């Protein structure tokens, strides 16, 4: 009985040592050499794996950056701090200042201001809802408020208000751009975070048509264009738009006195 125990324990110990040696030797012989900087760059990246860069997650981008195929600017989420940290690791010069973008929903017609003209009791999803006479809303360009963009956002930066309007929380938004494709009405744009004033309307229709269906649409009165410096506000047909290359100051909201209040600051939205 005692011999049997010794034998089995001995056998297991011997096998353990042998296999351990085997693994050790294999690991040495077939070692894959990896640049230690990849790990460091990966730490400096946001680590959200949002796919905003177009590559398969942060690890893939880190590899590409170290290999010199990409720069930190490719990452839409990366802040300037992160970018300079990556430059430090790689020993390159700090890249150009990364301008942070944020997503914005260019519509402020919630259920109170832009009423639905028909009852809709189908699937609660914007992309399904537009199949039924392009959405229940009177305005064919307005936010439907079923939250397909909010669902697509990996950072929970989009909130659907109680009145059924998608609003981006710019402090949470990392501008990965996933919401842009989620919106069937193409209302979401990426804009520089520094711009604090926007025209929250995307309808190119004539003013009488828009006023019938929405109280807060841009009626093309050009008040904001007249009150802004040259080229700060642009007219695109019947719709005023902020020139994001030469943005107007936030004070324009008070100065212009937009009659429908669709020109408003991001914070007041």
């Amino acid at each position, binding site marked *: 009985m005692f011999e049997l125990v010794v034998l089995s324990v001995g056998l297991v110990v011997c096998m353990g040592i042998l296999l351990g040696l085997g693994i050790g030797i294999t690991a040495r012989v077939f070692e894959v050499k990896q640049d230690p900087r990849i790990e460091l760059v990966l730490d400096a990246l946001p680590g959200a794996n949002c796919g905003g860069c177009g590559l398969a997650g942060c690890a893939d981008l880190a590899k590409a950056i170290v290999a010199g195929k990409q720069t930190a600017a490719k990452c839409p989420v990366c802040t300037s701090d992160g970018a300079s940290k990556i430059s430090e690791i790689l020993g390159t010069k700090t890249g150009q200042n990364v301008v942070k973008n944020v997503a914005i929903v260019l519509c402020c017609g919630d259920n109170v201001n832009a009423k639905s*003209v*028909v009852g809709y*009791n*189908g*699937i609660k*999803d914007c*992309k*399904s809802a537009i*199949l*039924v*006479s*392009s959405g229940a809303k009177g305005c*064919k360009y307005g936010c439907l408020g079923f939250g397909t963009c909010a669902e697509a956002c990996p950072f929970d930066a989009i909130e659907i208000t109680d009145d059924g309007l998608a609003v981006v929380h710019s402090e949470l938004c990392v501008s990965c751009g996933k919401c842009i494709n989620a919106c069937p009405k193409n209302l979401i744009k990426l804009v520089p975070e520094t711009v604090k004033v926007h025209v929250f309307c995307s309808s190119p229709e004539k003013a009488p048509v828009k006023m019938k269906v929405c109280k807060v649409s841009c009626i093309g009165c050009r008040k904001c264009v007249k009150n802004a410096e040259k080229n700060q506000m642009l007219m695109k047909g019947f719709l005023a738009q902020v020139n994001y290359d030469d943005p107007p100051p936030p004070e324009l909201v008070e100065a212009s006195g937009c009659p429908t209040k669709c020109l408003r600051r991001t914070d007041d939205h």
Partner: protein
Amino acid sequence: MSVIVRHFRGGVHPREGKELSCSKPIQTAPLLDKYYVILHQHIGAPPKLLVKTGDNVKKGQMLAESGGFVSAPVHSPTSGKVKTVEWPGPSGTNMDAVEITADGNDEWDVSVKHDPNWDKLTGDDINKRIANAGIVGMGGAAFPTFVKLSPPPDKKIDTLILNGAECEPYLTADHRLMLEEPEKVVTGAQLLAKVLNVKKIYIGIEKNKSDAIEKLIIESEKRNVVVVPLRVRYPQGAEKQLIYAITGKEVPSGKLPMDVGCVVQNVGTAAAVRDAVIDNIPLIERVTTVTGSTVCNPGNWKFRVGTPLSKVLELVGGINKQPAKILLGGPMMGMSQYSLDVPIMKNASGVLLLAKEEIAQYSSHPCIRCGRCVDVCPMSLMAGTLSLMIESENFDLAEYTNVMDCIECGSCAYVCPALRPLVQHMRRGKAEVIANKK
């Protein structure tokens, strides 16, 4: 020549509701002050406008010409003054339209005249007249008829089937047309057969219209047309199901009826073809059923294309209580309307007004995998499984599982005990698959 009628797979039998209007003879609507003719009334390219605001037109004059191969012209429903407008269409968006203010004379255009030598026309001549008359599929799809009659030379057509199934509940327009004008239907069928150069002509009619079957059998006795009584089952009138029931041929997935040598036309289309070829009358009026529990006098009417729904309701004697839903078409596949300005189109087989207690207001629940949708699907699809794929946005898998074969008949949603909006899921899936291909 007798036909063994086959039963297609699946299908449902909703409450028919046809008793409201099936015994009411077709009435002709009086001339109105204004008509709103939407230009794009068919599947395919939009037509090109020929008139401008201020022009005077005659009844039957072309307002817009065909804008491509798959396209159809539209004609003026009466004589009067033209104004180009944007007008709400049945799809819920504003569309280009022509407002005709009637001058009261209702004067025909010079091009509209009876042709005494019509029986000497060749197939090509007949098809040209059909194209010029703006005839489209009047059963609901509104596909330009002459395109269906011009198959590519490598496709051999041997069978023409007229669709008089009218499987949609409530609708009786085709039923009354077959009953009152069987001569027009059969002559139209023969003209269509001449274009296609086919010998076999069938008219498929559901057995619940026995009076129409008798009338057509008498009419077609010596005219080489076979009337086929069909099982009463929705969607018996769907093209592929009808072909299977009458010929036993199954249209392969992704293919068209012409691939099995068949062309299917609605009986209303056949009657319009007869008028267009023999009398040169373009498609400017059609038989429409106005029905539903909220309509005072449900019935069948000959409305001119462009009659707004508000006038339709006035003409039929109004409503006795507030309808909760107004549909253009039948209850299974009809389109819900939000504006009474929407005019009667070439494909408007019915106007259905349903009361609140008749329409479903529900929220959907998770699939319980009972498989009833699989039992009833006439295209042998797995609607429940497909809806789950589409819900999780797995469109590649949905395409592989043949979502594109769905004919959107709504049988699956009709039987679903979890009240899932399956047709909307299918439409989303189909839209995404088409978008991905582009």
